[in-house]
């Protein structure tokens, strides 16, 4: 047994990592829905969910239960195989894409094995290409769902979404090319490191990130990414006013949940990509010389924990008064741990920055949903083809010229 | 500017008539006769002048053979047929005769044809004939000569059938054409044989090769290549020059307009055969057999035609048969080796026979188209000029000194007499001379003397216009003086004409056989005999047709069978019709048409067509427009290719090569 473990340690670790990531991602998805509803509610000056659990924190759980136990009718005349395949495809692809994201620079040493954060080995030469490949395949989930459920609204939803995705995929890919040119690699890790200060160069921290030279690219990428994920304002595939529920009109309960999770997962993925390619991934925005910034995580976590405790004490329901302080103490304790274990603290820096940036992007997503109106279909198409694509191409050209110029006169 | 412009540009001489022909043929239809005349007469006249100039230059250059290759016409392997023209003494004679007489006859024709339809067509043909005839006489190799040869045949066909609405005319044209083909067949075979033997058809080189003693000594004697080749060429000559047995077309050719008869069937074309024989004398000289054949055929033809001529009543027919017999004389001369004499007779004959025909044409013109001598008579008062000129021509042809015919015919008879074993020929020739004078004077008497046998009220006899009389007069003068070139021979001097032609014929004149003095006396005696014969014929004719006209009919009755035979021309046409034409027609109808054409040829064509349709019907189904079946065919092809690649010896190498 042990021998087997020893023999297949790599395999074992990978499996464990997958399970862990799945759990994390699904939980994050669940609470992302809560987060979204809360934020949108507050944007629209409502309360949002606050009945189930304190601050509606158990709302996702309730939703999950509802998804699982609702009746799951299969409409007559659907193409069974495809009808079942579509959500599976969507979800699995979305989750797979997460697997390619590295969440931290350096491995943990456990049981004599270097364990990297992130499932794929960090030296995947074609990381970004693989990601694009998976997102490209993501079209099928929507398209097939729309087609298979034998419903004209669904069909139109599917048609629209596939057309939209194919169109914006071009812009998405082209807009990244600038970054790739600057990094000179497809490897996500290299891309992040390319934004780090070169040895012997002044450490410019946040100023070294790609977002500044690639501002055009970033704009295109972010817009195209939102379109890829069928989010507002590009959520025509499920435009309620026109198409009822769009491609997932005929889907109920768990299959619908699959689409739902897939959508949020791809949101996370896209946020990760944005972070990695334009915002320096796990790099701290501050120069490395500012060592005190290493205590920033604790400095954020401990007050937050304390606030949660205080809020919990004066919460109206007994359940809240019991549970919230516990959570608060946990958070605060985590912050304290970081303070008192410098090794852990140093290790935590990368993931901390990465996650916080991702959170910011997710917030932006929700924010946009709360504010922006939906495009009209022709506007969508013309926007994609006539604005995004040309702009991203121009960006590629400018970048390559800049690089050439640098090679020519930049010295060194 | 070359020293001899016209010689250098010798091709101008034949080209001008062609030009005239083209102009008339293309534009003449719309033109008034005047322009047509200008084009036709102008072109021929110009070419006559150029010919004169060329001849002058030829003399100027010391009478050396002029030969120039203008361009290569056919070149295949070692065979070259060029557009090569040459000029030597023989050519000089021919060219002058052709252009000169031709020009005169053109002028005459403008008067004679004035009221005929297709005026421009007539002159276009006539000029075309001139062109081909000049090509014929100027050609420097057999191929080009053959071109002219066939060309004159063509134009003669066109002109005989000029009145193509008359069935007899068109039939006559076809007859002439076909009979000539028979001869030409032999001619071509002769050319092929010559080329096969000597690998050239160029006169100079060919004759040098032929005169090469190696050939002569090689026993190419009596029945060798030379004989065969010469006989084949002579076959062609017989066709063209209307000798036995191919003479039959010439009398019928009289269907054509009279100027045509004068120019083509008396003066020039029919003498082409003689010209060819004379031109090829180098070859004939090597083959006694051929010469003997030529002599015999010529002599026989002369006599034979003369006998037929005795009883003909159509004025032109008489002249036609006399032409045949005179041509016979020429061949006789060639046969006995007296080539210069033959050519001399050719020239003189061209003069007086053309004159005779033109005069006859003038008579016919005067009689308003009447050709039967039995409906004429006593015209001498009414058309004096015609009568005078025609009388001169008759005297000339009968050989009354000092007119042209006397000298030439005398030279021929002398030649015939001198060759060993030539006496029979001589005798026959003499008899022919007698007959000739008889039928000629019979013609004169029947036409111009005696009581008039036509209806005055119907026919208004009138003298011809000067455009016709002028040529008559000129030709009359020529007929008188034409022979004087040879006159010195009688005064014991060298014969100018013979000497002139000596460079061509290498002086192989029979005259040199005997001593000079002996030849002189002999010549005189023979001349007297000939003249006697001529006068005898005159006398008989006078007695029979003027003193005792009824005797003639009596004579005819008394020897009815002979008379009928002669009248029907020995039934030769009927014979040919039975022996050749009928079987041919039968074969063409029952074999060539019904079997070969309908069954074989049409069958093949229709069969091919049907087969194609069937195949198409079959293949059409592969073109179903069905993509999948197309794909199947593609796959089949791919499999075949792969099989080849796979089973090809050393295939793995090639496959690796494909990979690497």
């Amino acid at each position, binding site marked *: 047994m042990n021998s087997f473990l020893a023999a297949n340690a790599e395999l074992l670790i990978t499996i464990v990592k997958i399970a862990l990531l799945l759990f994390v991602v699904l939980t994050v998805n669940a609470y992302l829905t809560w987060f979204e509803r809360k934020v949108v509610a507050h944007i629209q000056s409502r309360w949002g969910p606050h009945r189930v659990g304190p601050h509606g924190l158990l709302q996702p759980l309730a939703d999950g239960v509802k998804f699982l136990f609702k009746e799951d009718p299969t409409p007559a005349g659907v193409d069974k195989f495809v009808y079942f395949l579509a959500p599976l495809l969507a979800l699995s692809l979305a989750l797979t894409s997460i697997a390619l994201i590295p969440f931290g620079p350096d491995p943990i040493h456990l049981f004599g094995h270097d364990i990297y954060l992130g499932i794929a080995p960090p030296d995947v030469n074609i990381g970004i290409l*693989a990601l694009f*490949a998976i*997102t490209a395949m993501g079209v099928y989930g929507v398209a097939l769902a729309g*087609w298979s459920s034998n419903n004209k609204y669904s069909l139109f939803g599917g048609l629209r979404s596939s057309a939209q995705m194919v169109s914006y995929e071009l812009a998405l890919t082209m807009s990244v090319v600038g970054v790739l040119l600057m990094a000179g690699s497809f490897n996500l890790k290299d891309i992040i490191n390319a934004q780090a200060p070169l040895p012997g160069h002044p450490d410019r921290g946040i100023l070294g990130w790609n977002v500044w030279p690639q501002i055009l690219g970033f704009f295109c990428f972010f817009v195209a990414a939102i379109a890829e994920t069928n989010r507002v304002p590009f959520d025509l595939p499920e435009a309620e006013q026109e198409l009822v529920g769009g491609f997932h009109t005929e889907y109920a309960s768990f299959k619908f949940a699959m689409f739902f999770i897939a959508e949020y997962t791809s949101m996370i993925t896209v946020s990760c990509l944005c972070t990695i390619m334009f915002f320096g991934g796990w790099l701290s925005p501050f120069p490395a010389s500012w060592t005190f910034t290493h205590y920033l995580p604790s400095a954020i976590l401990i007050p937050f924990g304390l606030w949660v405790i205080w809020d919990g004490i004066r919460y109206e329901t007994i359940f809240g008064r019991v549970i919230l302080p516990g959570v608060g103490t946990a958070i605060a304790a985590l912050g304290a741990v970081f303070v008192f274990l410098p090794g852990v603290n140093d290790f935590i820096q990368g993931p901390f920055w990465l996650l916080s940036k991702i959170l910011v992007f997710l917030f932006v997503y929700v924010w946009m949903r709360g504010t922006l109106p939906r495009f009209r279909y022709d506007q969508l198409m013309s926007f994609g083809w006539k604005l995004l694509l040309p702009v991203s191409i121009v960006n590629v050209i400018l970048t390559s010229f800049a690089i050439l110029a640098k090679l020519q006169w930049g010295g060194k | 500017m070359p020293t001899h412009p016209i010689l250098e540009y010798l091709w101008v001489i034949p080209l001008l008539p062609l030009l005239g022909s083209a102009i008339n043929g293309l534009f003449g239809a719309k033109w008034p006769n005047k322009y047509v005349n200008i084009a036709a007469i102008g072109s021929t006249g110009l070419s006559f002048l150029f010919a004169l100039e060329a001849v002058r230059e030829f003399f100027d250059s010391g009478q050396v053979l002029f030969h120039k290759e203008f361009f290569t016409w056919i070149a295949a392997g070692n065979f070259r047929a060029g557009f090569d023209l040459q000029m030597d003494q023989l050519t000089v004679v021919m060219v002058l005769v052709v252009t000169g007489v031709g020009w005169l006859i053109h002028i005459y024709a403008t008067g004679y044809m004035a009221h005929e339809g297709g005026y421009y067509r007539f002159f276009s043909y006539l000029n075309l004939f001139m062109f081909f005839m000049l090509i014929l006489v100027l050609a420097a190799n057999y191929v080009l000569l053959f071109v002219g040869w066939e060309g004159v045949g063509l134009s003669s066909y066109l002109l005989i059938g000029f009145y193509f609405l008359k069935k007899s005319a068109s039939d006559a044209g076809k007859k002439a054409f076909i009979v000539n083909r028979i001869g030409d067949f032999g001619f071509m075979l002769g050319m092929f044989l010559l080329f096969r033997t000597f690998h050239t058809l160029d006169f100079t080189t060919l004759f040098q090769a032929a005169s090469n003693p190696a050939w002569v000594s090689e026993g190419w004697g009596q029945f060798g290549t030379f004989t065969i080749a010469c006989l084949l060429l002579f076959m062609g000559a017989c066709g063209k020059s209307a000798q036995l047995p191919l003479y039959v077309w010439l009398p019928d050719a009289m269907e054509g307009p009279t100027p045509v008869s004068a120019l083509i069937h008396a003066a020039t074309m029919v003498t082409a055969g003689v010209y060819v024989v004379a031109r090829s004398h180098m070859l004939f000289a090597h083959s006694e057999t051929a010469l003997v054949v030529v002599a015999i055929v010529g002599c026989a033809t002369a006599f034979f035609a003369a006998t037929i001529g005795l009883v003909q009543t159509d004025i032109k027919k008489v002249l036609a048969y006399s032409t045949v017999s005179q041509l016979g004389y020429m061949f006789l001369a060639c046969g006995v080796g007296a080539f210069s004499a033959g050519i001399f007779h050719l020239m003189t004959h061209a003069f007086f026979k053309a004159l005779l025909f033109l005069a006859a044409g003038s008579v016919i013109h005067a009689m308003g188209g009447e050709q039967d001598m039995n409906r004429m008579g006593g015209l001498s008062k009414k058309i004096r000029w015609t009568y005078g000129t025609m009388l001169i021509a008759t005297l000339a042809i009968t050989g009354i000194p000092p007119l042209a015919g006397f000298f030439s015919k005398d030279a021929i008879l002398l030649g015939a007499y001198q060759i060993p074993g030539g006496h029979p020929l001589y005798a026959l020739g003499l008899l022919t001379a007698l007959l000739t004078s008889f039928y000629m004077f019979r013609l004169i008497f029947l036409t111009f003397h005696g009581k008039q046998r036509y209806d005055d009220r119907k026919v208004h006899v009138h003298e011809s216009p000067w455009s016709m009389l002028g040529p008559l007069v000129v030709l009359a003068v020529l007929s008188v003086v034409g022979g004087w070139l040879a006159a010195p021979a009688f005064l014991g001097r060298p014969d100018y004409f013979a000497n002139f032609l000596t460079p061509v014929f290498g002086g192989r004149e029979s005259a040199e056989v005997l001593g000079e003095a002996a030849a002189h006396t002999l010549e005189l005696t023979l001349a007297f005999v000939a003249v006697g014969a001529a006068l005898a014929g005159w006398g008989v004719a006078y007695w029979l047709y003027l003193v005792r006209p009824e005797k003639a009919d009596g004579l005819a009755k008394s020897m009815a069978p002979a008379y009928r035979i002669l009248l029907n021309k020995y039934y030769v046409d009927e014979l040919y019709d039975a022996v050749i034409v009928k079987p041919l027609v039968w074969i063409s109808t029952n074999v060539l048409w019904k079997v070969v054409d309908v069954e074989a040829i049409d069958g093949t064509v229709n069969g091919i067509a049907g087969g194609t349709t069937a195949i198409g019907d079959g293949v059409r189904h592969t073109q179903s427009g069905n993509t*999948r079946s197309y794909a199947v065919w593609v796959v089949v092809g791919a499999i075949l290719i792969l099989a080849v690649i796979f089973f090809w010896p050393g295939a793995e190498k090639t496959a*690796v090569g494909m*990979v690497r």
Partner: protein
Amino acid sequence: MGREMTASLVVFFVLAALAVIGALSLIIQKHPIHSALSLIVVMVALAGLYLLMGAEFVAAVQIIVYGGAIMVLFVFVIMLLNAGVEEHTSISKMAGAPGLLLVVALAGFVSASIARSAASVQTASQSGTMSSTKEISGMIFKDFVYPFELTSFLILIAILGATVLAQREKS
């Protein structure tokens, strides 16, 4: 080495089986969408094979372009034309068993002749670092730059052609 060998062999056979099954189902399936899905399976399997051979870039492009663009176009068109189950007209007789025989012969020949050549290829030198994407880019933009430009022209023309073909004629 042995374990690695067997491992890659196993992976190969799995992917190969996947590909063949996909191709078969492309033929067997009656509905174009199903055929399209099977074809996608084939393509993904092929991409896996490319990865196995170390041709990462080609694998990625295979999935992005074939899987993400071309096949999407197919699916899109199928949805657009609302193509149903294919009807059973058998006008071309050759399509059935004879066609199968032909195809078997074809495949046999191809595999046989190429494999025979490949046998000698086996010994060819294995370059260590396959498909470093840099090398490929170098080849594309240096050795094959003109063909590359030509392909760009081709794409442009294809776009124009497609637009012209697909636009409804004004009536």
